[in-house]
């Protein structure tokens, strides 16, 4: 039935079929992401409320479930104020430049062995490259705002993201050494075998931790949210933004969190593979694993105080980078011995 319908459509559209069908697939990925972003904000407020023994939002709709919609409408109706002396073009461009890479990266994320928008051979590299572009939005926002607080936030963010990207890159190098492929689908397939024991989190455990924590730093989340730092620089790079322009930064931050959660699940926890051999592999496993990491993101925010800037730099350069460099060598040597079981 479904294939027949698709066949009819394909004949009807002719050469226009490929772009139309790709656009449909893109919408099918982007819409659920945007919905998850909306409800992640609600989940965040619930989780933090729960940690702080409060109730959290429960007024709008049943159980407060319509809260994200209310927030969205509020932000849409607000005026976007462009400060005097701001560089108008870059000021408007910056939020778009932040959200764009956060969504583009999803093109190569596999959801199950068959379902992936673009089965790119160099998928891991593509993700690294695309996510590294996201920092431009933050830097330009800070500079174009013509405000000292925003500018300081932008400078902090630039230095932080460039520093943590190195440790992140090395963590990915160990993953591709273990899997022997840059294709994310193949990386998951390489973890097949004896359930949770054959996932890469065991041989690459330090890298698993380094990757996730660098991911928290890359997404500018607490305790690494130096770019915002309300107590010192008000709200950092987005202090001058209001309305929908501000909302785009918000969307990008949460979309990036979901991306990091999915990537960690795919590369270290076997993606859609089942943790026990007697249960079938399913997309639901991937969702559950990513959901766990998202919860950890929120948990961190509710638990840890913000890092001081010099401590942040010390952690990145003097702890994460040496640890990941050593582990690259360890994995390289380990793989030459019969003790390598993965």
């Amino acid at each position: 039935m479904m294939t027949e319908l698709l066949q009819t459509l394909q004949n009807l559209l002719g050469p226009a079929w490929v772009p139309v069908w790709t656009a449909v697939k893109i919408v099918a990925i982007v819409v659920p992401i945007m919905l998850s972003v909306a409800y992640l904000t609600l989940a965040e407020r619930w989780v933090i409320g729960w940690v702080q023994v409060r109730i959290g939002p429960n007024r709008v709709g049943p159980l407060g479930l319509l809260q994200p919609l209310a927030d969205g409408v509020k932000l849409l109706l607000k005026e976007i104020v462009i400060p005097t002396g701001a560089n108008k073009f870059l000021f408007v461009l910056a939020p778009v430049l932040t959200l764009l890479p956060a969504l583009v990266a999803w093109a190569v994320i596999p959801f199950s062995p068959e379902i992936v928008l673009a089965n790119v051979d160099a998928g891991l590299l593509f993700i690294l490259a695309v996510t590294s572009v996201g920092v431009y939005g933050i830097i330009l926002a800070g500079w174009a705002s013509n405000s000292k607080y925003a500018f300081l936030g932008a400078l902090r963010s630039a230095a932080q993201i460039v520093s943590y990207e190195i440790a992140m890159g090395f963590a990915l190098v160990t993953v591709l050494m273990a899997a022997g492929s840059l294709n994310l689908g193949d990386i998951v397939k390489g973890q097949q075998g004896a359930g949770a024991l054959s996932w890469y989190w065991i041989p690459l455990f330090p890298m698993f931790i380094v990757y996730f924590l660098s991911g928290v730093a890359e997404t500018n989340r607490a305790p690494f949210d130096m770019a915002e730092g309300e107590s010192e620089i008000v709200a950092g790079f987005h202090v001058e933004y209001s309305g929908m322009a501000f909302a785009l930064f918000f969307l990008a931050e949460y979309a990036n969190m979901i991306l990091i959660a999915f990537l960690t699940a795919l590369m270290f926890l076997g993606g859609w593979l089942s943790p026990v051999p007697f249960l079938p592999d399913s997309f639901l496993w991937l969702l559950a694993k990513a959901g766990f990491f998202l919860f950890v993101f929120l948990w961190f925010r509710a638990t840890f105080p913000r890092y001081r800037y010099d401590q942040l730099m010390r952690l990145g350069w003097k702890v994460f980078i040496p640890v990941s460099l050593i582990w690259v060598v360890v994995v390289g040597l380990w793989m030459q011995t019969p003790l390598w079981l993965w």
Partner: protein
Amino acid sequence: MNLETLVFYLFGAITLLAGLRVITARNPVHAAMFLVLAFCSSAGIWLLLEAEFLAVTLILVYVGAVMVLFLFVVMMLDINLDQLREGFWRWFPFGAALALIMVAEMVWVLGSRTTADTVGAVQHAANYSNTKELGRLLYTDYVYPFELAAVLLLVAMVAAIALTLRRRIGVKSQDIAKQVQVKKADRLRIITDESERKTDAQSGS
């Protein structure tokens, strides 16, 4: 003209325009952003040549790291355009001569017979891995030049750090290892004073 050629000309035009704006833009931050655009469209051209690894690495290294640090510096500069323009005509002949030499070199390389013979990129099968091939060549046939380049970069890095490192006396800094190893006895001293001892005795504890 097929789609591939069209896309090539599109990327080529964007690269040229962006390159031109890099040197003509009045605002240094705009100039840096046009350079980013030029890198992105060059990466597009490399993708057309089936050099996926190089294209992605260009974005990752130049756009994602080098240009970010570049912007970082450029944004903090206080540039006076009048001062910059002062020496323009004095330096113009020198710059023009350099440009001419570069054009001549490019014509020489691109127009030579050996380059002309290899015109047309080699088409590979869909499952051909550019990354694997590059890695194999770099670590076998070209391993010595590759390692030499790495050592050169390391020397440059050490030199840059050595040049900018200044040891000053009286700088306050923390030793994290020392802080972590602190015991309760190092920081806390329990003192009972006279009045407290009295209340303790009265309450009979």
